[in-house]
């Protein structure tokens, strides 16, 4: 790891100013992706701007229709939140499956979403619930947020401040972990709203999280496990590596979607 300047701004404004001033600065939430990358010498930012000291940067708020999770909220806070467990139980469950205990105590929702790891769990929840990502500049629909491998719609210097999740009628999360890393080899987050609209967010299978629209269409007609699992997902465009071929990932998307329908509550 190379030397870097470490900053702990108290406000979002100050953080953005610091990034602008730095030569090659990076924002940091829990640091559980950034720091290992730096240790391996794969990233060597000149400045780390630690966002976790910003006042009121974390926290969970609920309305009748919406769960709002502020960017600095840790996975553990989401996993154990009584309100979230009641409003969107699958979201709390999903947060409880991220990494290990240490990771969940440090890692934040904002960091996870901004990083957009193709195998991260939150992107599937954002897509599967139709979330809105709020930044210091604007609000972005999840559908337009995840643009590629580690790529998002965020502009240089933009900071995620909160994520708004509409409360669905039913939802479920299914994760098939990579046997070694325990990241999602493939993960599916499914929801059905009061009007019967179904969303299926998929992570781990492609370079970027995406919506399985074929499964959504099938479930709109027939909301059953079989209806989801019988959809054949095209392997083309999915990732292939030593742990899973594209064909296997495609198969897992249908299997997990079927299981999600069965588990949805």
């Amino acid at each position, binding site marked *: 790891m190379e030397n870097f300047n470490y900053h702990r701004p108290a406000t979002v404004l100050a953080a953005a100013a610091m990034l602008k001033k730095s030569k090659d600065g990076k924002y940091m939430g829990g640091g559980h992706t950034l720091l290992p990358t730096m240790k391996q010498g794969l990233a060597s930012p000149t400045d780390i701007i630690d966002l976790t000291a910003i006042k009121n940067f974390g926290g969970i708020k609920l309305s009748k229709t919406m769960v709002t999770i502020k960017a600095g909220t840790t996975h553990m806070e989401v996993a154990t939140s009584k309100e979230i467990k009641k409003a969107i139980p699958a979201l709390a469950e999903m947060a409880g499956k991220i990494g290990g205990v240490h990771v969940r105590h440090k890692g934040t929702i904002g960091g996870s979403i901004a990083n957009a790891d193709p195998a991260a769990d939150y992107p599937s929840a954002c897509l599967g619930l139709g979330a809105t990502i709020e930044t210091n500049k604007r609000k972005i629909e999840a559908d337009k947020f995840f643009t590629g491998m580690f790529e998002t719609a965020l502009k240089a210097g933009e900071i995620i401040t909160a994520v708004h999740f509409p409360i669905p009628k039913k939802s479920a999360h299914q994760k*098939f972990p990579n*046997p*070694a*890393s325990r990241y999602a*080899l493939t993960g599916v987050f499914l929801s059905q709203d009061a009007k019967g609209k179904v969303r299926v967010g998929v992570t781990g299978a492609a370079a970027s999280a995406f919506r399985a629209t074929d499964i959504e269409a099938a479930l709109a007609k027939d909301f059953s496990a079989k209806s989801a*699992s019988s959809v054949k997902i095209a392997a083309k465009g999915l990732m292939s590596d*030593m*742990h*899973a*071929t594209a064909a*296997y990932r495609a*198969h*897992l998307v249908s*299997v997990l979607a079927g299981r999600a329908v069965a588990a949805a509550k």
Partner: protein
Amino acid sequence: MADTKTGIGASVRRKEDLRFITGKGNYTDDINLKDQTIGYFLRSPHAHAKIKGINTAKARKMDGVVGIFTGEDVAKDKLGGLICGWMIHSKDGSPMKAGPHPVLALDKVRFVGDQVALIVAETKEQARAAAQAIVVSYDVLPHVVDVAKAMKSKANVHDLAPDNRVFNWSLGNEADTNAAFAKAAHVTSMDIVNNRLIPNAMEPRAAIGSYDTGTESYTLYTTSQNPHVARLVISAFHGLAPEHKLRVIAPDVGGGFGSKIFIYGEEVACVWASKFIGGRPIKWTGERSESFLCDAHGRDHVTKAELAMDASGKITGMRVHTKASMGAYLSTFSAAVPTYLYGTLLSGQYNIPNIYVEVDAIYTNTAPVDAYRGAGRPEATYVVERLVETAARELKMDPAEFRRKNFVTSFPHQTPVIMMYDAGDYGASLDKALAMADYKNFTSRKAESAKNGKLRGVGFSAYIEACGIAPSAAVGSLGAGVGLWESAEVRVNPIGTVEILTGSHSHGQGHETTFAQLVSERLGVDINNVLIVHGDTDKVQMGMGTYGSRSGAVGMTAISKALDKIEAKAKKIAAAVMESSVNDVEFKDGTFTIKGTDKKMGFGEVALASYLGHKFNTSEIELGLKESAFHDPSNFVFPAGVHICEVEVDVDTGLTKIASYTAVDDFGNLINPMIVEGQVQGGVAQGIGQALLEGAVYDEDSGQLLTGSFMDYNMPRAANMPHIENFQLGFTCTPCPSNPLGMKGCGEAGAIAAPPAVINAITHALGVRDIAMPATPLTVWTAMQSMKIAAE
């Protein structure tokens, strides 16, 4: 029994664990010496390349740099290269082709991670920064990583082996075996791959080397399973210094599994280089990624195996041809692993009149391959037990009964592949395992699983291993460069506490407890009054170390022999002090009594008397109570057992779960059943790891190790194990006749037995003939796709 609470057979809690689990162990990296510097290794990024030049000029001028050393410096100082201590001859009589293995790469690098330079600096950061400033110009050469392709590859790892073949070794009678196959009523033939594994001991390798400019002597602290062997090799072969000028200390060592038997370039380089920086100590602690790249790997065999049977289902012959990857260099013990630790075990538990095995040992551009928990015996067991299980299925015989029909039942039994099995009762272990696993009700459990969308299968493994290695003359005749005896010294202090100096080395095995139990049993001394001293060549005169499940059968027997001498001498002293004849002295429960009298002395009193010399004639009986012994075993020991695994395969995802695992083992007499159980559980965990999870993968195109971290290399976790209620251990006992304690070894059994048990269960569940290890969800799902085993 002396003390039933702490003697032989008692499940005494491990004395050493409190210190280990509270962070008070003393590992190499915990040690810091005055004026210590930090060593860092620059490693090859290429699988195979010529070194055209190494420019260190800029790096040498950088902050904190104390010294930079390359292969040329090593050669200039005439420091010898690393050796393989076991000479194997090919079938045609020619010696194995051992290519050069320099301490730091000279002229050529042969695998990704090969050490090119040692950078010594005040801090690790400085050393690393300097390493990045070194410019090495490489001429990249063709490489080969796949053992199956290496003999026909255009890559040539060592000039002296143009086809990359180190040796072509054989064992058994080829003509008789071929004749048996010609007459066979049925032949089962299989292509079997034993996947390459990366050991991953919890503590990475580490070393601190220093040179005393006053006494002109060296000290090396290192993570070794056998510090005396390290001293011998560094002294006699590298020629660093004579043995009395070289001290090797292996303090607490956090796991080895074989990977810390070997003498590696890094450790040698650290101790050698210290002399050139004014004797300042050089510390190197391997990073986890270095463990992945550079610790000796295990297994990596590709085999064609055949089994011949007569019409009644009796095995009449076995023919095996194996290609064994040795990696880029011959590591310390490597040549023995796919030969005398492999071919000699191909008879398994079975009466097989004709066996012929041929092994091609082959260089590849990969990390060296050497002994890893089981070393050769897991590979042999995998071949035998996959063949036997498959043959039974082909003959439509129950796999348990097919095994029983072919078991060796009378002892001693001479196999056609050197080994003389001394004792065993394989039927007893099978019966016990069948009962514990409730084999007869498997079908109803299978039906139950099917209701939940799961395919259930059951697999057997009736393993045998030869361990407690080994009789010195026997291994000497087979090519070993050393004898494989063990030594012990027993020092009784004047107040009756006992120090045991042993050449065995504990790195997780619990010797501080089990060895003390033996002393407690024999001398009636509380185990807390026994100190086990090991791992320091200045304290213990000589020893051969710990590997091959030898510390009990060989190491403890040496202690037992020294204790015999202690007892004999203590009796003489007790007799003299109590003014009686030595023939009338009896010793029991720590008390010396005189037959027919009420005279008695405690062990502590006799110990004190031995150092006072007040009450016996010191010209007749020598003062003191200190004895030593060497023990050379007369045979290997032959632990054996039957393991039964049941798996459930998820039809949708290919995910395999171990539904239950039953291990019945015959280790002879047990010293500490709790520790033995832990060894079995740990070994089975490693075996399940090999079967389901672990596999080193090198990229064919780039030669890079793809599984270079835990992100991609899947170490077993608790969740991969069967639930503890479904993980049953049982024991049978035929005491070993070749050592007084009747012990066999238990350290490797689980890792040997488990892989075929698991794979036999998966292939049974799927109804396929074979499936590759590790049977990952992807592998199993892919197999199901080609079989069209679908959910509906």
